[in-house]
């Protein structure tokens, strides 16, 4: 049975072909990430510090500072983001607390509805709030004399849109409690409030900070919402859009984009450091905390969840309703006019097909790339020194780069006439690539977590058995990590379907995506068709999510024999 596999190798070779492939492949991935992430950001920086004549200097910054209203825009952006953070984080914290630390019926349902805002573009909230609180809105009286067009509307819609992002983080933060601490507190007969202040809050503090930073960054870089509902309230994100799309002033756009990039990047660097500190705080001995029913805690929380879910369903419901009403507010007959005439007949339905294509390709191409790169990084060997830290940094960077900033970097970089990749500009390909890069970090982290979760000696064993690492990737690693892979695909698909920020700078008439079409429809005042398009996106995302749940469910049932304790 002993096969002389060794003697067939030419003398002097030190590694098999597939073993030597890992380094160069990882290098290739690093180059791809550099081209589609670092270079556009570099182009952005260059564009900001070079004036029209090509000379270096801070002239553009000075010019920017001197522009009337810019100080106002900076201030507006800042205080709106702070207000949004101050509202969203407590709202989401109590909601997450209700899901994780109370005994509510239908826990899964509250969770799904809490995350429902992720299914549509951020504009859904803006459109729905115009309908609820606008001049003709049913709830206009709630705002008194204040117009919804302006900071009030921006804050409301951004709170709605950023809520699920905070919720996801806080649910995780509250889910990983150490039950022993509560038992100790109970043993010391600590009061409910004291337990909350001394055990719950400190346990979730990293989650809270993380959620606050994410919401702040979201608000600072969100531009669809202020564009739709902001009226004439100036914020930096819209300013970028006006400068770049409206006036094709790329240099000025680059300056504003840099101004946006810095606080967001800073927020994520802080967050990253905190996350690293947090990991060491959790011990393997922790006992998961299981809440016991207690109506004095559960009933108010149930009521709270009901209130919030009603509001969230109200937003989605209003968007759907708007899409069905024949002529708001004078003819409230229901019809499919907006879908038929507003979208299909007007040729805007192509945008939805474009989005399907972009989302499909993003998931189809992005998932293998992300997973394979993570695999090369975690399980492979070889490549020049410093390559692995570089790839890790490149994979973490997109989290700190607002899509808007990435989009402008792409314009500046790929639209350069001297760039050999110039041909990509305005194509579907570049939009797919931009989307993959924009949402790279969470996908990468999912892949890395999955890869770290499996035995780290698989590669060593297969090497000893003379099996190529790629065979082991295909036969073992990939099947074991399949749930994570599907999760990445779903995440990429839904985000590609709903994102506006990077794509708004990159589309051409043939590649107009649905989410941007909403923006354009709204700009033309076509709120009905805009709502119809938003509803289509939400339905598509919901379908994909459902499909994902179904597939994972089947997967776990079929692999019951070996997928134990993996869920």
């Amino acid at each position, binding site marked *: 049975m002993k096969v002389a596999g060794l003697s067939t190798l030419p003398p002097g070779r030190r590694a098999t072909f597939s073993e030597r492939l890992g380094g160069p492949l990882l290098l290739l991935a690093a180059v791809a990430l550099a081209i589609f992430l670092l270079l556009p950001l570099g182009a952005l920086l260059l564009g900001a510090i070079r004036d029209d004549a090509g000379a270096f200097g801070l002239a553009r910054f000075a010019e920017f500072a001197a522009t*009337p*209203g810019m100080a*106002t825009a900076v201030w*507006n952006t800042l205080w709106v983001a702070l207000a949004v953070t101050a509202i969203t984080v407590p709202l989401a914290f109590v909601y997450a607390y209700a899901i994780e630390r109370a005994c509510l019926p239908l826990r899964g349902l509250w969770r799904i509805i809490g995350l429902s805002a992720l299914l549509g573009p951020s504009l859904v909230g803006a459109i729905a709030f*115009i309908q609820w609180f*606008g*001049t*003709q809105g049913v709830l206009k009286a709630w705002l008194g004399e204040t*117009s919804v*067009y*302006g900071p009030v509307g921006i804050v409301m819609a951004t709170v709605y849109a950023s809520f699920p992002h905070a919720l996801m983080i806080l649910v995780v933060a509250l889910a990983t409690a150490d039950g022993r601490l509560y038992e100790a507190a109970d043993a010391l007969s600590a009061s409910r409030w004291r337990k909350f202040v001394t055990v719950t809050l400190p346990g979730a503090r990293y989650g809270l900070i993380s959620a606050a930073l994410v919401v702040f960054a979201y608000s600072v870089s969100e531009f669809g919402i202020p564009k739709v509902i902001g*009226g*004439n*309230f*100036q914020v930096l994100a819209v300013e970028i859009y*006006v400068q770049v*799309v*409206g*006036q*094709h*002033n*790329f240099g000025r756009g680059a300056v504003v984009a840099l101004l946006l990039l810095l606080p967001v990047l800073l927020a994520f660097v802080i967050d990253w450091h905190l996350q690293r500190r947090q990991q060491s705080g959790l011990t393997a001995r922790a006992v998961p905390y299981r809440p016991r029913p207690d109506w004095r805690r559960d009933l108010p929380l149930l009521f709270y969840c009901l209130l919030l879910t009603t509001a969230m369903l109200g937003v989605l419901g209003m968007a759907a309703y708007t899409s069905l009403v024949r*002529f*708001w*507010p*004078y*003819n409230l007959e229901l019809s499919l006019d907006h879908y038929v005439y507003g979208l299909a007949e*007007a*040729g*805007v339905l192509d945008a939805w*097909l474009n989005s*399907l*294509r972009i989302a*499909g*390709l993003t998931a*189809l191409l992005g998932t293998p790339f992300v997973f394979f790169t993570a695999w090369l990084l975690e399980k492979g060997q070889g490549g020049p020194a410093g390559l692995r830290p570089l790839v890790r940094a490149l994979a973490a960077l997109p989290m700190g780069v607002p899509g808007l900033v990435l989009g402008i970097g792409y314009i500046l970089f790929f639209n350069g*006439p001297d760039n050999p990749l110039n041909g990509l500009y305005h194509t*579907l390909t570049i939009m797919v690539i931009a989307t993959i890069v924009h949402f790279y970090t969470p996908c990468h982290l999912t892949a890395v977590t999955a890869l770290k979760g499996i035995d780290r000696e698989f590669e060593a064993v297969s090497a000893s058995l003379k099996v190529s690492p790629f065979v082991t990737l295909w036969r073992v690693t*990939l*099947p074991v990590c*399949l749930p994570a892979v599907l999760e990445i695909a779903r995440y990429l698909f839904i985000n590609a379907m709903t994102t506006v920020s990077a794509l708004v700078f990159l589309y*051409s*008439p*043939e590649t107009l995506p649905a989410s941007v079409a909403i923006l354009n429809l709204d*700009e*033309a*005042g*076509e*709120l009905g068709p805009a709502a119809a398009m938003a509803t289509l996106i939400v339905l598509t995302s919901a379908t994909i999510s459902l499909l994902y749940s179904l*597939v994972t469910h*089947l*997967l776990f049932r*079929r692999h019951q024999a070996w997928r134990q304790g993996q869920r």
Partner: protein
Amino acid sequence: MNLKHIVRSLAVAGFALAAALPAHADKTVLNVYTALETDQLKAYQEAFNKSHPDIEIKWTRDSTGIITAKLLAEKAKPAADVIMGVAASSMVVFDREKMLQPYAPANLKALNPRFRSAGATPTWVGMDVWGAAICYNVAEMQKQGLPRIESWKDLLKPEFKGKIVMPNPNSSGTGFLDVTAWLQMFGEKAGWDYMDKLHENIAVYTHSGSKPCVMAGAGEFPVGIAFEYRANTVRAKGAPIDIIFPKEGLGWDMESIAIVKGTAKLEAAKKLSDWATTREANELYAKNFAVVAMPGIATRLKYVPADYEQRLVKNDFEWMGKNRDAILAEWQKRYSTKSEPKK
């Protein structure tokens, strides 16, 4: 669920998606930049393709200000072959930048001589006129007890504070023609004074010229400073609006067509330019606009008065083009920070 099956079905899905991408036949592809309304593009394209099936038009559509900025930004390496349905005031700017290819379309002689640029061979040719109109929501007027509107000056009444929407001239061609009309009608100083006061009453500046009338139609804001085509369609959809043509006179601009200098598809570009001056094309314009380039075709729009053409102000495109940058910069300086009304 076997991994191989999943991968296989994903691959099939991928190919299906790829196959669904627009296939390019052996056609001349003409890149046309336009500010025409989306709902007009389709009809024009279909009619053109009936006689020229070998030419495929790829539209790049945006509002006037944006298309103008885009063309100027791409000056060094133009992506457009033809500019169609863009304001004459912008064409003047392109002409000054030597971006346009002089060409006399086949039917030039049949057109009203006002609908062309000066010079022996025109660089741009007009298609139709679009001009200012005010959409006034009557239902809201009655509900809120607002005064009647007959003139531009009526808009300055304090009752209208926060009730008026108008397009931002930086992005909207309609906004620009309003501003230039006021400056030409009232004179420079009085024009800016008027806008200063109007600014006090404006609720929102929109980026598109269509949105104010749509918003007025939906009662979101009762008064929208708009243009007659959109006013007509909004009204036709059943919105309770009156279309008002202020008595001082109406600002207007001319949708026009031009060939971009240096285009590699000059022949196809000429064909489109020729078609745009045909009777057939003018009949299509006339469905949307009261005043078109070919005399004697214009049919009255249902909600636009017969004497519409006489109400238009005297317009100097050269002046508009020459001062475009300065006017927009001044406007931006004065009104871009609406959030803090000047005391």
